[in-house]
């Protein structure tokens, strides 16, 4: 075998493993009934079918909309709360308790409450995702604010008495790499919570599709949803978040 670089070797092993798993799936699916384990080619055909006929496309966009809206809300609210704690030290204990409270309750609990409060709709789903990822932003942004270079802050104070300028010109840019890291983390969690939230409290999205598929014992459709979710999640992380974070870390963090 010709010598491969270390990275190439590692990739090769990973790819071989994936192929082996696909093979195992194919073999197992031949022996099991379709409602337990559909064959890979059934799933592939249905995936193409769903996406191209637009039957599922609407639901894909519904889920993307839920996740994006909740990320935006959670990010803005979480950052605002952490920044409040940074400038108004008296609120720090209170914020710590809010974060601990939010962190301790599960998405299913929130989903059931949201149905009672808002009904079966987009608002319920977005609410559940946002409230689950909110503590991630609060806690991460608090940690990020603690990391802001105190010497730079004092430098800013010596040049200006307006806290807003110091915030905009020093504190905020120092937070950029951390903002992206928490968005990335929250994105992964939001995807998973979206499924639960849509399953219990939604009338659209992947969770809703899975719910219908479950009721009609349409196992291939559940596999289709899983496959599409994996693709979206992977593509977003590798093509958007990872390169953006590399750039921000290089540019804004002192390395």
């Amino acid at each position, binding site marked *: 075998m010709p010598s491969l670089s270390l990275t190439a070797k590692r990739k090769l092993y990973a790819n071989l493993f994936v192929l082996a798993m696909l093979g195992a799936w194919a073999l197992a699916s031949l022996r099991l009934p379709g409602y337990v384990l559909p064959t890979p080619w059934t799933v592939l055909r249905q995936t193409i079918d769903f996406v191209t006929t637009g039957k599922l496309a609407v639901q894909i966009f519904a889920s993307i909309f839920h996740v994006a809206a909740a990320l935006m809300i959670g990010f803005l609210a979480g950052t605002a709360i952490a920044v409040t704690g940074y400038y108004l030290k008296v609120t720090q204990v209170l914020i710590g308790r809010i974060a601990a409270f939010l962190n301790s309750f599960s998405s299913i609990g929130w989903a059931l409450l949201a149905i009672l409060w808002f009904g079966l709709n987009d608002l319920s789903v977005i609410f559940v995702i946002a409230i689950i990822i909110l503590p991630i932003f609060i806690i991460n942004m608090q940690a990020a604010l603690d990391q802001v*270079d105190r*010497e*730079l802050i*004092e*430098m*800013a*104070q*010596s*040049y*200006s*008495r307006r806290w807003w*300028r*110091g915030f905009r*010109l*020093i504190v905020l*840019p120092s937070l950029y790499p951390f903002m992206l890291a928490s968005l990335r983390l929250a994105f992964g969690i939001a995807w998973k919570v979206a499924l639960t939230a849509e399953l219990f409290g939604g009338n659209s999205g992947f969770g809703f599709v899975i719910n219908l598929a479950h009721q009609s014992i349409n196992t291939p459709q559940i596999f289709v949803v899983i496959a599409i979710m994996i693709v979206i999640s992977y593509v977003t992380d590798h093509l958007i978040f990872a390169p953006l974070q590399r750039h921000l870390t290089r*540019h*804004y*963090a*002192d*390395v």
Partner: protein
Amino acid sequence: MRDPIIRFDHVRLRFGEETIFQDLSLSIGQGEFVCILGPSGCGKSTALRLMGDLLRPDGGSIAVEGRDPRETWDRLAFVFQSPRLAPWRTALDNVLLGMELRDARIDREQMRKRAVEALDLVGLAKDIGKYPRMLSGGEKQRVALARALAVEPHIILMDEPLSALDPNTRQRLRTEIVSIWRKTGKTIVFVTHDVEEALVLADRILLLSNKPTRVIETIMLDMPRPRSLDADACLTHRRQELMALFANLEPERAHA
């Protein structure tokens, strides 16, 4: 002495249980180059922070240009021991940062022009597009100096700005600081614990004691610059005097 631009009258300051200043009085003249010399931990930097209104005294009075420091903080600019540059901004943008922090009303073109001039004055005209990570320690400190100059302060407060640099760079920057001071006519208050540095730079040295800190000796220096400690007998004599005084304040350092 020239008109005092900074004046401390019986200043008192405590940090919790510790008394930093019990009764500190001093004055600094308009356009003067004053070195504040003292053992480490005696409150030299703290005195600068009081001048720049980053700290308030517990008693006594401080006047900058005859007014309370709270009203005159924007007449001063700091150069700290570490350069304190924003790593995401180029040299030029770091100089602009000082101006953006201080006064957002200045016209953008005007600001840029001033920043370029300041960088030119510190000898970095060619490096305005470089990020701090691409600059040496001495160059970073020059950017910090340009940032201070660009806000056009009346007084520049320097807090051991050269102590983290290698000896050669330190020498060169000393000379340049003196020449910038000559060109601009600004008042410079320069904190150091290096006796030779104070002798080479200052019009006047204020020697501070251990805590509670007071001025134990004022030394006037009217020798022409650039000064060389080895060539000037008078300076050598001053140095011995100061070293002896210092030995009492900080035994280990004087023998080192």
